[in-house]
């Protein structure tokens, strides 16, 4: 454990009745770092957040903040949430309805004198551009404004780490992007360490310095966003962040025979069944002239306009004789349905996993 780590979770385990919700999760958030814990709903990511905050009694493992152990059942340490110095932001914002915006933000500032407290409330509200609403009540605010106040309230006491549980899910899509951007800027400016839990892969890619991907109570993969996107650890990790094309085959003589050709399969055992995967935007299409030396000549089935580009569907027959529909993302003008095209995938965009 490094002393500058804002939050370290070691080998957390948590059962609900007999169901294992969290199974050996370890993660760390360094000072000033924004870390996203991402995964499909029900994977246990919110439980990890609650264990970190002390809202759930830790059953096994260890939670440390800024080098101090705050939860460790084996050592009989259990610091209650009110003494862990964490900030929390919720999906429903959880602003206290009976208090004004100013009083909401001042709620956690118990250690300051009244004058310092007022100053701090004003400062933080100015940062989220809500200083004009200091005397307003939460019900009078829009969703985006409430989110900003909730963020200000959590940041005001300068927590060791800010924990955000699906903080943008309550906002409508258009607003979400703006609020995300503002939140990230604020966290960076304050140098706040943050652990953000989300089910939205795009949000995780957008926000995170590092991502932990969770599935069924376990961490599947962790690393910077690009690493998770381009070097996924398994097929689940690959398909979580965006759609992938999958072609199945068997390893023979260190190679896999698939519609893209004979591909080298390093690290896979002879005779193993593997999945060859690549993302739709990695594929290049060009009109077939009939004299191509490489590439796969296919016929376009249909095309769909997405606004930001096009998706083109092309059917291929894999090595085992099954029909597979490949998706291709194009930015420019697409070919028409029925056109014969050449399909090429750069070798470094192809990832191979053992079939599960």
């Amino acid at each position: 454990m490094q002393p500058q780590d804002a939050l370290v979770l070691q080998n957390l385990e948590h059962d609900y009745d007999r169901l294992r919700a969290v199974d050996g999760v370890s993660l760390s958030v360094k000072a000033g770092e924004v870390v996203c814990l991402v995964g499909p709903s029900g994977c246990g990511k919110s439980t990890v957040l609650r264990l970190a905050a002390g809202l759930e009694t830790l059953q096994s493992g260890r939670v440390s903040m800024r080098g101090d152990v705050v939860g460790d059942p084996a050592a009989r340490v259990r610091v209650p949430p009110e003494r862990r110095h964490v900030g929390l932001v919720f999906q429903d914002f959880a602003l206290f309805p009976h208090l004004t915006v100013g009083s909401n933000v001042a709620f956690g500032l118990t250690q300051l004198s009244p004058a310092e407290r007022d100053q701090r409330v004003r400062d933080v509200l100015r940062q989220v551009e809500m200083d004009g609403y200091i005397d307003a009540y939460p019900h009078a605010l829009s969703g985006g404004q409430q989110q900003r106040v909730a963020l200000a309230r959590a940041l005001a006491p300068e927590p060791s780490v800010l924990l955000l549980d699906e903080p943008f899910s309550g906002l409508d899509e258009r607003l979400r992007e703006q609020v995300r951007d503002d939140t990230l800027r604020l966290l960076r400016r304050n140098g706040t360490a943050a652990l953000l839990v989300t089910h939205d892969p795009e949000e995780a890619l957008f926000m995170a310095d590092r991502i932990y991907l969770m599935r069924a109570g376990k961490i599947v993969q962790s690393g910077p966003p690009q690493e998770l996107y381009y070097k996924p650890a398994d097929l689940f990790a690959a398909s979580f962040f965006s759609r992938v094309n999958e072609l199945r085959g068997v390893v023979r003589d260190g190679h896999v025979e698939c519609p893209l050709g004979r591909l080298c399969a390093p690290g896979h055992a002879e005779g193993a069944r593997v999945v060859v995967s690549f993302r739709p935007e990695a594929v290049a299409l060009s009109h077939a002239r009939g004299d191509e030396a490489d590439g796969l000549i296919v016929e376009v089935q249909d095309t769909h306009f997405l606004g930001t580009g096009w998706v083109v569907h092309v059917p291929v027959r894999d090595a085992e004789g099954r029909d597979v529909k490949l998706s291709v993302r194009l930015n420019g003008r697409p070919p028409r349905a029925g056109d014969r095209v050449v399909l090429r995938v750069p070798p470094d965009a192809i990832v191979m996993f053992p079939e599960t």
Partner: protein
Amino acid sequence: MSLTSQPQAATSVRFGARHWSWPSRWTIAACALALLIAAPVISVLINAFGARSDIWEHLVETVLGDYVVNSFLIMSGVTIGVLIVGVPAAWMTTLCRFPGRRLFDWALLLPMAFPAYVIAYAYTGLLDYAGPVQTSLREMIGDPDGLRWLPDIRSLPGAILMLVLVLYPYVYLLARAAFLEQSVCVLEVSRTLGCSPWSSFRRVALPLARPAIVAGVALALMEALNDYGTVSYFGINTLATGIFRVWRGMGDPVAASQIAVILLLFVFALLAIERWSRGRASYAHSTARYRPLPRFELRGWAAFGAIVGCALPVVLGFALPAAMLLHWALSSPEYWENAQFLRVLRNSFVISAIAAVLTLSVAVVLAYALRLHSTRATRIAARIASAGYAVPGAVLAIGVLLPLAALDHALADWIKAQFGWSIGLVFTGTLVAVAYAYLTRFLTISFSAVEASLGKITLSMDLAARSLGRSPSKTLGLVHLPIMRGTLLTAAILVFVDVLKELPATLVLRPFNFDTLATRTYDLASDERLVEAAGPALAIGLVGILPVYLLSRAIRAARPGAQKDQ
């Protein structure tokens, strides 16, 4: 702030794979309070089974049969009565349209304002030989000696009538809520399939509302078993009056406790029925589509019948007895324009306010403990604590007085022996005993209100406050209580009024010479000083209107779609 790894108050220890930790202070408080609430019933059981009574065999041979049969007859009569009055009234005001419907919607609750014993006094005065009804009837037929054959209101059927008139609102309220919650679609389908108003009621609305109606009847019957004032004034021996007669009259607390156990058996059967039906009621409707209900237009004779059917319970259960009491009170103001009446009024208000605050505080502790730690222990504690409303006042009286009196004497003897002081009766000689009984009986009202209100506050409020450095108790004071203040006030008013009306436990447990409106009314009426009793009786009714107003307001707010109607 440093976060050193010092051991905390709540430590967690591993025992193999399972975990064990000390129960929190809140859990311990909840369990202790539940024990306190259950203590009177436990004490009754110990008394009943722990000792032998000299007269029990004698009682079984003589009067016990009467007690049981009369209680049973009253329950049967009240069941039939509240169904006949409450269900059609609820159906007509929710699913039909006729002149005056919106007035009856809330007016049908007015009879809740009076306890049964108060209207029993009013009707006795109204209907007895010298009363206005018989006098004018005799004048009409011109025979000063006629009408001897008229039935006496002071009889078993009369008592049933009194109880029905004030208890039907339970059935009305729950049936009403059930009819409103029924899916609009189901009712519309029944209409398009050609159901007449009557057959739609019989074939669709009634079967769907049946669990709620059963729960309402169970509540009414618990109140009927609790009644002491009416039956004792009418001279009918029931289990409730039997407890008092055997205990106070024959001086046999053991036999009285044994009768109390029989009464408790009746009550627990009702409690089981009520909880079972409430559980079923939640399955009875599937969709929650709030649209204005499709009301059946009633015209001509049908509308006239609806008006009469709704007006009669209001007139008989409220207007007529209120008018009688008002007439008495205004004709003899000297009985209540005096210092004694003011003292009684103040006593009632003080003890009701104490009970309301006490009850509400306990309810908050219990409900918050359940929110913080929803463990088996706290859930059982909450269940026990919220069953107190079923325990009849007479049972509570004996269950509270016997142990407290023993405690009092032991304490007084000990202090005397140790210090030579005479401290008197600390519990039974003060308001402690009576406040304890009120807490036991009326905790349910405030607990269910607080629990429902807490349930509406999202858990992330708690988490936010905790993460901002506030302990659970601080969070309760700074977040939950301010958010709930409206509910708390309403709950306090409901308890206040119920305490004001309570008779049997108050009669026994009040300190010497401490008169309340209820006991004063009872004492005066028992001495046949009905005109004098009118002042305090009317005061009870006036305060009793408060919950009627609150309920009618809640009813209006409950269903947005219903307001747009008409």
